[in-house]
């Protein structure tokens, strides 16, 4: 089974994003003895953001492995295990920590397949928590997916909801390539953080894949395409619902993965609406928002009836104070203003 549309789940069972992620991991661990989990606090704690809750009890310490705070060593070890045909899931607790282990990620995980002329595969899933909105400061709040997507050799998936979190995790584990699975803390459904209402949603019980590289139309509309990802999908949906009363019909495109990027779905949407707003919680310059606008411009700038607009984190570190952080994040207020702007209102 494969889910290609956001509206596909027909189940009434509702799970949080974190539980949906864990369900996919558990099912794959049941199915394939080569799948195992390693990372900091993935065992008894169950993952700081509940990405591995219950797996230790179910699979034991041989397959759910707490590691030292030693990302270079354990992510490198995951890469070596993958080279030998195992299918590790390694967790980098925060994407912000990539600096201490980026050589393993970028020079090894991402390049071995190419350097080996395709003779060595590296089927690893690197899970990592991203995003801000809860005053965790400049070193624990970044998204950084643009950085990972910039570097060739890694698939990058960014689920926004429980059903996709499960299906994308299943696809990621089964993929023969390295997949960076970036989950936003704000959509995990954590009891200790302001919960987005859509962080709990319907999730089919059976195994299914959400194909990596296929965006979803999270909300169809005719006036403006809002291309976005992860938590920002929900802010965009909230604004879209609100603006429907102002006779502005937003189409929200949930990218779901950055590598590969589903350029066709973006172009088809822009072809229908003629207007493009990109909402991205990563930094503004040299990133996802610029890339998407460039792809539209490269293919057919005539699709656009108005200049494209982007809402992203201005090029500053994520501030601590609540008011300051809210000023730089892509909040509903900023998205709303941008929609009015692109609509010429």
């Amino acid at each position, binding site marked *: 089974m494969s889910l290609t549309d956001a509206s596909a789940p027909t189940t009434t069972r509702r799970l949080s994003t974190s539980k949906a992620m864990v369900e996919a991991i558990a099912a794959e661990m049941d199915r394939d003895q080569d799948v*195992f989990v390693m990372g900091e606090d993935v065992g008894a704690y169950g993952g700081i953001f509940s990405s591995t809750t219950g797996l230790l009890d179910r699979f034991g310490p*041989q397959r759910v492995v707490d*590691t*030292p705070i*030693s990302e*270079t*060593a*354990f*992510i*490198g*070890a*995951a*890469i*070596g*295990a*993958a*080279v*030998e*045909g*195992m299918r*590790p899931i390694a967790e980098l607790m925060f994407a912000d920590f990539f600096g*201490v282990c980026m*050589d*393993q990620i970028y*020079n*090894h995980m991402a*390049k*071995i*397949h*190419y*350097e*080996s*002329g*395709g*003779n*060595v*595969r590296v089927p690893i899933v690197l899970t990592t928590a991203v995003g801000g909105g809860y005053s965790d400061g400049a070193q624990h709040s970044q998204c950084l997916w643009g950085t990972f997507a910039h570097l*060739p*050799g890694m*698939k990058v998936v960014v689920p926004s909801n429980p059903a996709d979190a499960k299906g994308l995790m299943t696809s990621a584990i089964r993929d*023969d*390539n390295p997949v960076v699975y970036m989950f936003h803390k704000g959509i995990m459904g954590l009891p200790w953080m302001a919960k987005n209402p859509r962080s709990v949603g319907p999730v089919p019980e059976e195994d299914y894949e959400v194909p990596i590289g296929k965006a979803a139309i999270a909300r169809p509309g005719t006036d403006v395409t809002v291309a976005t990802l992860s938590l920002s999908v929900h802010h965009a949906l909230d604004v879209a619902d609100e603006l429907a009363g102002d006779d502005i019909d937003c189409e929200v495109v949930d990218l779901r993965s950055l590598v590969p990027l589903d350029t066709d779905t973006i172009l088809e949407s822009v072809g229908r609406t003629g207007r493009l707003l990109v909402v991205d919680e990563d930094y503004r310059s040299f990133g996802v928002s610029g890339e998407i606008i460039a792809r539209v411009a490269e293919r057919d700038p005539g699709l656009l009836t108005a200049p494209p607009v982007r809402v992203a984190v201005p090029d500053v570190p994520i501030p601590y104070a609540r008011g300051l952080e809210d000023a730089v994040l892509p909040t509903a207020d900023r998205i709303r203003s941008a929609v009015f702007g692109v609509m010429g209102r």
Partner: protein
Amino acid sequence: MDTATRLDLYRMMVLIRTFEEAILREYHADKKPVFDIGAGAIPGEMHLSAGQEPVAAGVCAQLTSADAVTATHRPHHFAIAHGVDLHRMTAEIFGRVDGLGKGRGGHMHLFDPDVHFSCSGIIAEGYPPALGQALAFQRRGTDGVAVAVTGEGAANQGAFHESLNLAALWKLPVVFVVEDNEWGISVPRSASTCITSNADRAAAYGMPGRRVEDNSVEGVHQAAAEAVARARTGEGPSLLEVHTLRLWGHFEGDPQAYRHDLDGVPGRDPLPTYEQELRSAGVLDEAAVTSAAADASERVEDAIAFARRSPAPAPKEAADLVFA
């Protein structure tokens, strides 16, 4: 040590040296009169391992093709000693389609999964993946061992220390090998490292550490036997440092103006030293020396001819093989 083993070690050292001399010849042949690092049939940086043959020959004699080796930016000696396909390795150095990496890797990025061989051009960063290979062997209940190689300059990198800790913590079947050739490019060991033996660092991680002096292939062979046996029987990792010799420059084209020990280098060449030792012991005679050289030359020239026959990869395929 028995005669057959000594002959094998000698012949392996001769094969490696013959290969490196042939690559040296081919590398420079079309870079004259003006040296251009990006020109010629073999372009790019070229780090040759002449002088370090005893380390690879001694260690790999204890391994089988089911064991893993992760080597460095200077990988040829370990690749050859571990049984990497010589034809395809040479073709990769020439950047041809029949190369191990179909021309995508180059001489610092040789991968031969048939013998679990890989290398990394980033100092010390070949250690962590070796842990994972060892972990896979351990999980699958094989008695496979992963050998992780770096130079002495790498022993001051974080990846080195993280790897030693994790391997010891998880009792992984790893043998950490440090090739101390005394030079991190132009920086002498005395200016980079606060202790005289990196083997002492093993104590900090609760594993045995041993340093082999004098670039002795038989010393390496014996020390590696203990370390590999320890790993194979589930007792965990060991650290083995070998005081070896960088006979040539850091890379080809390195003028080595910084190197004040050059006058003494030829006298420390391990190959004539070992040959003389074996002759004196009655293990080698003129016929055996001639035959080792002839056999090595035949294999190496055959591999170079294979590489030269192999086509260059099509430029339009440069973007292929990023993903499986």
